[in-house]
């Protein structure tokens, strides 16, 4: 039947050749007179995200009691100014400035006795009218270290007993909260810098971490209608979600919550049972969790939680800034806890839950942030200001030796300040830099995590992509048209088709080259068992995978002595069109992209050079920074 269709094609072409110029000629008549210059935007109808914005969703100022009472003297004003690129003097008197400002910031001070330290400095009458408040005030104001330490211990005692010393002065919390929201309004500049309102709910269960950061889509007018929910109110995340629902009901606003540090939760973060009643989680729980907690802060100062070497033994990049020796409490870590602490394993277990419950409780997007308590959102190896003011850049051994977790645990369970990570950033794909646009992107999970650099990465998954789509100038438009972005869902593969992915990654404009791009696949087989595999899909140079299937390392240009590196290896830009070679349309699966940079000096190496201190031997001298995108999920159902 070929000949007739060829004939038809020939006729069609002939007609087209004749007709089209005629139509064009018509169109020419409509062309405006040539002496008028027309400027126009070629994308008037486009509404898909076209830019990535970098920010910190987890920063503490002096308004957090556990920062303000241990030396932090910088409030939200200084924190916003620093994030926006202004020079600021740190609490230890160091003048400091970000080389490149952030695009957005969430100040997430602890809800528990918010502003206590500030009120002490101000000798605020509100504070002094509370007998306990007055006692701590006097202890601190008498000067000297002992009084301050005693006051801080007194506050920690109240926290551990979960007895709010200001229960009879509700106005105090409100006053301080209103100051924070006011500062957010002052520094929010739509289009240039976004100040999102937020706070941290600091739930600790026997020292096991269940903290969440709550982020508002709204402004002060709605946020001021509440005071932040604290651990004095409840330790149970399900109560936090109830409170969030009540806020939305009352104000018409919107909230989302971002948990972090599964690695310090001793197995509670991604547990199979509810916290209080220890009932097996059900479909309703899964739906509520994913409604209220669309994101997870997978990497920050207190370690990286993407993968663990014992859960992913064949992944040579899994052991990165790993904190696995316990929590804040006395209980040491056991191996059985790990699957309920790390993101990749949680994604895998989530697939099993999808089948079992009809809903996936661990279907979250990934971002990074700092959790800095210095009011300074520093995320680079060469500008790391430490977790707390005591650890700001100094030659003092405290910057390496201070015990951060495991104080009450048996010897060998401690994690030291030198193991802190100069991490991380939240990267958001959005059309505009405004509260609404960024929050909406977080809610739909079109976000990714970096370990502190401004790596750019984009991925689309679909069934109809070809390698040609990779180089198109309208790459993103095609991606949205024929597939889904990170955070999206693919369903019910058409017969004979496997999902393929378009990936582009570009290095930080001021940073290190890229080593490779990987796709991490996880899937659930017919017996209910989960699996994972890491694929190298694009890499720099002419390397070839070895006999063991592993790609050789990219090399290392780091001079440890000088704390420098060069971009003589790696490449600024990588792209890949990758199709799943082992796709089974009946199996639940997820795919996320991991981009790895070439080695750069770790902050401890910079310290050794700058301060002349001894390089610690139990942390690496150089690291490979990375980005993790939110997965694209595949399900066989429709």
């Amino acid at each position, binding site marked *: 039947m070929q000949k007739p269709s060829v004939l038809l094609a020939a006729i069609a072409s002939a007609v087209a050749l004749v007709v089209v110029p005629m139509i064009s000629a018509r169109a020419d008549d409509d062309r405006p007179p040539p002496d008028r210059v027309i400027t126009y935007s070629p994308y008037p109808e486009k509404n898909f995200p*076209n830019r990535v914005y970098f920010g910190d969703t987890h920063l503490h100022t002096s308004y957090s009691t556990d920062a303000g009472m241990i030396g932090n003297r910088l409030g939200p004003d200084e924190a916003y100014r620093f994030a926006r690129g202004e020079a600021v003097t740190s609490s230890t008197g160091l003048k400091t400035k970000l080389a490149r400002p952030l695009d957005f910031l969430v100040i997430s001070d602890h809800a528990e006795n918010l502003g206590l330290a500030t009120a002490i400095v101000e*000798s605020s009458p509100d504070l002094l009218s509370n007998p306990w408040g007055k006692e701590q005030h006097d202890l601190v*104001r008498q000067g000297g270290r002992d009084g301050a330490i005693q006051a801080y211990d007194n506050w920690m005692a109240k926290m551990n007993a979960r007895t709010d010393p200001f229960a009879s002065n509700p106005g105090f919390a409100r006053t301080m909260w209103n100051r924070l929201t006011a500062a957010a309004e002052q520094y929010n*500049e739509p289009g240039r810098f976004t100040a999102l309102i937020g706070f941290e709910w600091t739930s600790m269960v026997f020292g096991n971490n269940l903290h969440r950061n709550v982020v508002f889509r709204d402004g002060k007018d709605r946020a001021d209608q509440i005071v932040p929910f604290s651990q004095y109110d409840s330790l149970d995340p399900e109560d936090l979600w109830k409170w969030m629902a009540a806020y939305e009901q009352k104000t018409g606003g919107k909230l989302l919550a971002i948990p972090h540090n599964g690695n310090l939760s001793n197995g509670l973060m991604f547990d199979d049972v509810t916290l209080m009643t220890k009932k097996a989680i059900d479909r309703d729980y899964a739906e509520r969790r994913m409604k209220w907690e669309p994101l997870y802060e997978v990497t920050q100062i207190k370690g990286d939680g993407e993968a663990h070497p014992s859960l992913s033994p064949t992944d040579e990049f899994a052991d990165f800034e790993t904190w696995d020796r316990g929590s804040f409490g006395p209980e040491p870590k056991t191996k059985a806890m790990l699957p309920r602490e790390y993101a990749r394993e949680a994604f895998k277990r989530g697939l099993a839950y999808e089948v079992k419950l009809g809903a996936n409780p661990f279907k979250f997007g990934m971002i990074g942030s700092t959790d800095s308590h210095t009011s300074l959102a520093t995320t680079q190896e060469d500008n790391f200001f430490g977790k707390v003011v005591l650890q700001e850049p100094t030659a003092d051994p405290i910057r390496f030796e201070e015990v951060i977790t495991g104080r009450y645990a048996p010897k060998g369970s401690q994690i030291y300040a030198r193991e802190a990570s100069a991490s991380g950033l939240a990267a958001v794909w959005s059309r505009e830099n405004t509260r609404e646009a960024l929050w909406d992107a977080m809610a739909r999970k079109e976000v990714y995590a970096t370990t502190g650099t401004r790596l750019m990465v984009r991925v689309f998954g679909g069934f109809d992509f070809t390698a040609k789509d990779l180089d198109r*100038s309208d790459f993103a438009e095609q991606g949205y048209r024929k597939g889904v972005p990170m955070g999206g869902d693919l369903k019910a593969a058409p017969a004979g088709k496997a999902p393929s992915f378009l990936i582009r990654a570009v290095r930080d*404009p001021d940073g290190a080259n890229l080593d490779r791009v990987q796709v991490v696949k996880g899937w659930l087989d017919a017996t209910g068992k989960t699996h994972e595999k890491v694929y190298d899909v694009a890499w720099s140079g002419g390397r070839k995978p070895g006999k063991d299937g592993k790609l050789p390392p990219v090399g290392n240009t780091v001079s440890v002595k000088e704390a420098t590196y060069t971009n003589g290896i790696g490449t600024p830009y990588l792209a890949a069109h990758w199709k799943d070679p082992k796709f089974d349309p009946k199996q639940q699966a997820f795919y996320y992209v991991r981009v790895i940079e070439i080695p750069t000096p770790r902050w401890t190496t910079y310290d050794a050079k700058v301060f002349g201190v001894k390089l610690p031997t139990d942390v690496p001298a150089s690291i490979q920074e990375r980005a993790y995108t939110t997965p694209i999920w595949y399900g066989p159902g429709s």
Partner: protein
Amino acid sequence: MGSPRTDWNGPSEAAKIQPTQHVSEGPEQCSPLRRLAREPLLHFLLIGIALFLYFGRSASDDSEATRIVVDQAQAEVLAQQFETTWHRPPTDQERAGLIETYVHDEILYREGRSLGLDRDDPVIKRRVRQKIEVIAEEIVSRESPGDAELAAYLQANPAAFKRPTIVSFEQIFLGPEGSGGLERRLADARRALERGADPGSLGQPTLLPSREDSVGVDLVAKRFGGQFGAQLETVPLGQWTGPVVSSFGVHLVLVHERVPTALPSLEEARPLIAREWESGRRKRALEENYRRLRQEYRVVIDTTPTGSAQK
């Protein structure tokens, strides 16, 4: 007439009083009242009474010191403070409690002051300093800044408010500097553009935007690194130009539109200027106030140097 006083031998010659001064006394010259009036004891008594009355007033000041008055106005102030915290007025019982607490504070405060406990107390000193500083802030400017104030601040601090240059541009990325074949790719791309090729089909794709509309060059600098943003401020308009170098490498750029850096008008940037002015205001008020007061004091620093060398 009594007998002349034996201890007084009469006035001396010099002290003889003229008879005319005693004319009015005439027949009373020797009255008891007159004598009494001259009694030194009486004089002493009168002086004593005067002194007693004078110091007696201070004694009633003493009783002032132990007198505490809680009038309606004071009670209202206490009730207001209560309401600020509790969002409701106090009950009668609470009201009585507030007054009793106030009295309790006042009594112990007065006792403390009379014992000099308020002196040399660093907490009290700091609190008083804070109160003076609050007053100083109020004195310098009580009201929100007016237009004139803000306009002056804007002119005086241009660096803080200058809007960056705004550009609309397209770019084509040709590869890292020094990469093989770069010169040829550059030439090929220029020729293709002259022939009217679609810019999107030329150069190497990256995640860098191929087109940006109305963005500040500072944001461009953030995204492209290197001197790319700065160069967009100077390249000619309306024509493809290159090589323009970012931290990624070499580009051809076409700047459609450029609005040079300028100070915003007061209307455009009022909230921003007000915010900056406010944050500087407190600092300025305190510095001004302290400078003024310092001039009235003579400070002597009389310490012995420790002699420790500076590293």
